[in-house]
């Protein structure tokens, strides 16, 4: 049974012969090719090669066609800032005030060199791995994208505005970000992605209240997922347990949980409707050694692997640059060790 079958089986709530494992390795290809992060991300050939080397080295179940999620701001004229030892972040914001909305034309991913490169990366990875490894694309969800276009503070401020001011702006903004998100995800799927991950950090309980989630975030994510012609993985990035009962409505089959989410409880609440992925602490991981990593993974597997509906992974959008090799190996190895003891114990 190869990676893809294992993933499909677990998503159907059946226990595969081995639990699928997807460490989110985005930056690490640069290390393999001994390039700077900026240089690595500047050519799709580098990323295809980097992802190939990573999957050969660790033996996990997927390859990632996107470099990071920050690239989405380029479609709006936003700029990226690169760093030596971490992912890029937004440099210049695309919008200075809400009045800029009247001036903008419909953004398109084809105006962004980085996003176009991502499509080529996905095509390249698909030609190498289609049908064997999960090919993963990603985008920022429509409700969270404004925080990267104008800033989190003005976005929060708008959510608290009086209805008369808020509603027209909010509708306009979400309409723009939803259209971009849908066309961008569909393009990735056409290029060969098996799934797209929608990163929706602002929609988490870390950032908003339950009634705000229900009123603003839920309707737009539902519409978006409905319009995407492929499988969507939902990634709230922050804490989502308080809203877990609402998740089956969104139309996604898999949610990535944060380490603070009680994964066992979430799995029980979602079982049969949505699978769960996660939720190793992706910051503590920096000071783990292989023994600690193994111990954490086995504890997690014991809790949530039985019965399928689970993919082992880290929480959050990526494994940090400084994470040691032995820890990544241990995460991937843990599913084999767990399977052996499980078979031995009958």
């Amino acid at each position, binding site marked *: 049974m190869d990676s893809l079958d294992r993933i499909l089986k677990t998503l159907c709530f059946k226990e595969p012969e081995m639990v699928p494992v997807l460490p989110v390795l985005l930056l690490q290809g640069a290390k393999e090719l001994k390039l700077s992060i900026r240089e690595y991300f500047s050519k799709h050939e580098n990323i295809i090669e980097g992802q190939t080397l990573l999957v050969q080295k660790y033996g996990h179940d997927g390859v990632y066609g996107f470099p990071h999620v920050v690239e989405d701001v380029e479609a709006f004229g936003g700029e990226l*800032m690169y760093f030596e030892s*971490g992912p890029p972040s937004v440099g210049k914001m695309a919008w200075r005030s809400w009045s800029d909305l009247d001036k903008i034309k419909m953004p398109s991913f084809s105006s962004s060199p980085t996003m176009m490169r991502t499509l080529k990366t996905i095509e390249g990875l698909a030609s190498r791995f289609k049908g064997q490894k999960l090919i993963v694309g990603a985008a920022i969800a429509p409700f969270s994208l404004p925080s990267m276009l104008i800033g989190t503070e003005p976005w*929060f401020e708008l*959510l608290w505005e009086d209805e008369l001011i808020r509603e027209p702006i909010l509708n306009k903004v979400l309409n723009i970000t939803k259209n971009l998100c849908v066309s961008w995800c569909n393009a990735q799927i056409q290029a060969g992605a098996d799934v797209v991950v929608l990163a929706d950090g602002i929609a988490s309980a*870390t*950032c908003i209240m339950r009634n705000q989630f229900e009123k603003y975030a839920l309707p737009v994510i539902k519409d978006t997922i409905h319009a995407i012609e492929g499988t969507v993985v939902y990634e709230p990035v922050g804490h989502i347990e308080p809203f877990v009962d609402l998740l089956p409505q969104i139309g996604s089959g898999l949610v990535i949980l944060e380490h603070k989410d009680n994964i066992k409880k979430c799995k029980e609440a979602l079982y049969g409707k949505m699978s769960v992925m996660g939720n190793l602490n992706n910051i503590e991981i920096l000071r783990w050694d292989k023994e600690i990593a193994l111990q954490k993974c086995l504890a997690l597997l014991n809790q949530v692997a039985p019965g399928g509906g689970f993919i082992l992974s880290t929480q959050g959008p990526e494994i940090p640059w400084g994470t040691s090799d032995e820890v990544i190996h241990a995460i991937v190895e843990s599913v084999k060790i767990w399977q052996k003891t499980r078979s031995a114990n009958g």
Partner: protein
Amino acid sequence: MDSELLYSKFYQSLKEERYLDAKGIIYQAHQQGMPAGHILVKLVNRALDQMQKSIQSQAVQTVDFSSESKKYFECLVAADRNGAKQLIDEALKNQIVPSDIMHKIITPAMDDIGRLQSKEEISLSQIYLASKTTEEILEKLISLMPSKPQGIGKVLLGSAFGDYHSMGRKLVGASLRFYGFDVIDLGMSVPNEKFVEYALKENINIIFVSALLLHTAEHLKGLKQLLIEKKLHHVKLVAGGAPFNFDKELYRRLGCDATAPHGIAAVQIAKDLLGK
């Protein structure tokens, strides 16, 4: 001893429930030749009146302020910005002095907001609104005070080098200011050298640094080293921001002296470090 002094001693001993002393003072007044009628009116009745008034006013104050404070807290949690402002305007109309509004209505509510934050039972957008609303109200209250309240210490604040995120830093700054610190906010992406320059220039004992991303947090290591090189061993470094909330040991690994999960907890750390 003159009768005013006798009275004040008598009242004090009653208040502190030292009844034998109170009895002794009456005896002393009698010995000094004060007539019994005077003793009754000028000492006993007057003291009892004052005791009663003080008990009544205490009762009124605690009941009233705690319920106002609870209402203020409820407005903040429900993100009812206008409700919070109206409540404070009414308190002002009812002749409650600005410093009482600040210390007895707003502060306990903010303490409770801090407790919710520690339990992670409040979202960042609520914290944002609570902080913003309180800051606006505070500005108004301070403008109504006869003199600006005395600051309890000067601290430095900034986002780590390469970090262009501001919201976490601003929230921490607002809490520190609210609880009486003078905050010098150096803004986004502050080079380590600038932190040190200001620490020297302004004679600062605590630097607060905010970082949302791990690789910008890494600059704190260099900042600690620079402080040591410049013989600023006494300057404490407090780090915070999302990565520090995921790994409670991260601050130590980066050579910092402390961390806190949110602004109100940062205030306690500042007070502890400055011995306030």
